[in-house]
Structure formats: structure tokens, C-alpha cells
């Protein structure tokens, strides 16, 4: 197989067309993801409007400091991901591997904080609906509803990160074997689009879940 075949798949005229096609496909997938998360955000907005006081009380029970720190961690991982794509575009294999590894490490830090420092703590505090819910303050049943939203929304977000970590592991092995070059880096760029999208979801989750609790 000649080199040009490896770079441009049979069905495309040239690299530009192939690049446009893969980006478009990825963006359409992300559009479906927007609808998926959009449904959760809409439901959350509706119930927040109905039970405003209870949702604010419940939001107080979350650790805004950890939420803010995790936001920063995710933004750092987005930067390293953007730099990984740039390194791939320039055909710098070592830099690509370094940036992919840092993105994965930062993603794992986020997941560790989320699951071990936050979820585990919430569970021990008796804030896990259905499993261990012992909160007995005002509006207890509505606080429970808030925590249903909290665990499902952050859980689905974390699941997206875990999937991202898996795909990135595959890309890391491919990069290690020299599968990418200045002419062929589409998979890295599509990974970037996915990772940044997951970052954007968190950018909305953080203020909606942690900050709108009238903390003053």
C-alpha cells in the first residue's frame, strides 16, 4: 500500500475533504450529546424552579471548593489536550505522547476527586438517595430529589470521562507506534473535540449544581 493510501481513505478526494468529513461527523455526534445532556439540564431547571429553596439548601451540602478545584483540573486537561492536537498537527511524536499522558493524568485526578473525595463523602454523610439517605433537615424529600440529579448528572459526566480515558489509551498506544504524522492526525483531533465537549458540560454543571445555592 502506498503512503498516500494510508493518509487518505479510498472514498475521499483529498486530505481536506477527509478532514472536513471526520470533523463534521464528530460535531454531529456532539450535537446528539448536547441533546442528551440538554434533557438532564432541562429537567434540573424545571425542578429547581419548583423547589428553589430546597435545591439551594441541598446545594449548600456540596463542597464548592472541591468543585472549583475540579473545574480548574479539567481546564488544565483541556489545555494539554489542545496542545496534544497541536503537537500532532506538527508531527511531534514525543510531545504528542507527553501531552496525551498529561491529559489522561489530569482526567484521572478529576475522577479521583469526584468519586473518592466527593461521592464517597456524600455517601457517608447520608446523602445518597436510595442507598443511604439520612438527611432530616427541612425539605428532606426535595433535597433527596436534588441529590438524584446531582448523582446522575455528575455520574453521566464522569462516565464520559472514563470512556475518554479508554479511547485515549488506544490513541496513546497508536501514537507510541508512530501511527500519526503531520498528514494523519484526525483521530487525535476528534479525541480533542470529545474531550473539550466533556469540559464544556462540566463548565455548566459546576455553577448549576455547586454555586447557585445562595452561599452568601
Amino acid at each position, binding site marked *: 500500500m502506498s503512503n498516500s493510501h494510508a493518509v487518505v481513505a479510498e472514498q475521499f478526494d483529498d*486530505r*481536506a475533504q477527509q*478532514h*472536513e468529513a471526520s*470533523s*463534521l461527523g464528530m*460535531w*454531529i455526534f*456532539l*450535537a446528539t450529546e*448536547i*441533546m442528551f445532556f*440538554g*434533557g438532564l*439540564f*432541562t429537567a434540573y*431547571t*424545571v425542578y429547581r*424552579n*419548583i423547589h428553589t429553596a430546597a435545591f439551594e439548601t441541598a446545594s449548600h451540602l456540596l463542597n*464548592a471548593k472541591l468543585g*472549583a478545584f475540579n*473545574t*480548574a483540573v479539567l*481546564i*488544565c486537561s*483541556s*489545555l494539554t*489536550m*489542545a*496542545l496534544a492536537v*497541536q503537537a500532532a*498537527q*506538527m508531527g511531534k511524536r514525543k510531545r504528542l505522547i507527553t501531552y496525551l499522558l498529561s491529559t489522561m493524568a489530569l482526567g484521572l485526578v478529576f475522577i479521583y476527586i469526584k468519586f473518592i473525595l466527593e461521592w464517597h463523602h456524600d455517601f457517608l454523610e447520608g446523602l445518597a438517595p436510595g442507598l443511604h439517605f439520612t438527611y432530616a433537615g427541612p425539605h428532606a424529600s426535595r433535597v433527596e430529589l436534588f441529590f438524584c440529579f446531582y448523582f446522575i448528572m455528575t455520574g453521566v459526566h464522569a462516565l464520559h470521562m472514563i470512556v475518554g480515558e479508554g479511547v485515549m489509551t488506544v490513541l496513546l498506544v497508536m501514537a507510541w507506534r508512530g501511527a500519526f504524522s503531520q498528514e494523519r492526525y484526525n483521530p487525535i*483531533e476528534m479525541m*480533542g*473535540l470529545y474531550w*473539550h*465537549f466533556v*469540559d*464544556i458540560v462540566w*463548565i*455548566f454543571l*459546576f*455553577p*448549576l449544581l*455547586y*454555586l*447557585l*445555592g*445562595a*452561599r*452568601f
Partner: protein
Amino acid sequence: MSEHIAPKKLYFFVFASLLVLTLLTWQIAYVDLGQWNIVVALAIAVGKASLVAMFFMHLRWSGSMMRIVVCAAVFWLAIMITLTLGDVLTRGRVVPSQGWHTSAAILHTAAPANQQR
């Protein structure tokens, strides 16, 4: 085209802006702005999301096809949220026998009608 290679400096600038906006949104949450807290928080979130989409996701250098897909996705999301809230937030203001009312005084007359349902 999106095969444009952005300079490192730009990425670091966007990164710094995102961190500053995160700090800002976090600190503003501790200041009582009444109804405006939610507006400011969401405005900052939209600003951050736009920065990520434009620069990290290369939309700034993408073709119009990509922009149409993004706009369509956001537009559909807006339809879902607007129509849903249009229903939920106006419940109780519409009395089936009397039609559409907005004044608060009429809400009291609407209450018994609601209870019958």
C-alpha cells in the same frame, strides 16, 4: 479551514482566561446579587464554553458546515428549554374557563380551579 495550526501563546491565553472566569464565577457565588446570581453564573458559563468551542475546538477556523451543526444543536436545545419552561412557568396562570391572565390578583381565583383538577 480547521487545519490551521494555532500558536501556543493563544492556547495559554485562552487557558488563563478560563481560569480567571472560573475564579470569578466561584467568588461571585458568595455575593448576594438577588435574581442576578443565576444570570451572572450562566453568562460566565456561556462565555467559558464559547472560549473552549472557538479556540480549543477550532471552530474559529472551521468551515461553515461545522458552524451550522453547532448552531442547530444549540438552537434545538433552546427550543427544548424554552418550550418546556414556557409550559412549567405559566401553569396556574391559565384558567381553562377564563383564558389567559397575567395579573397576580387573578392567580388567587385560579387556585381553586387548579385544585379541582
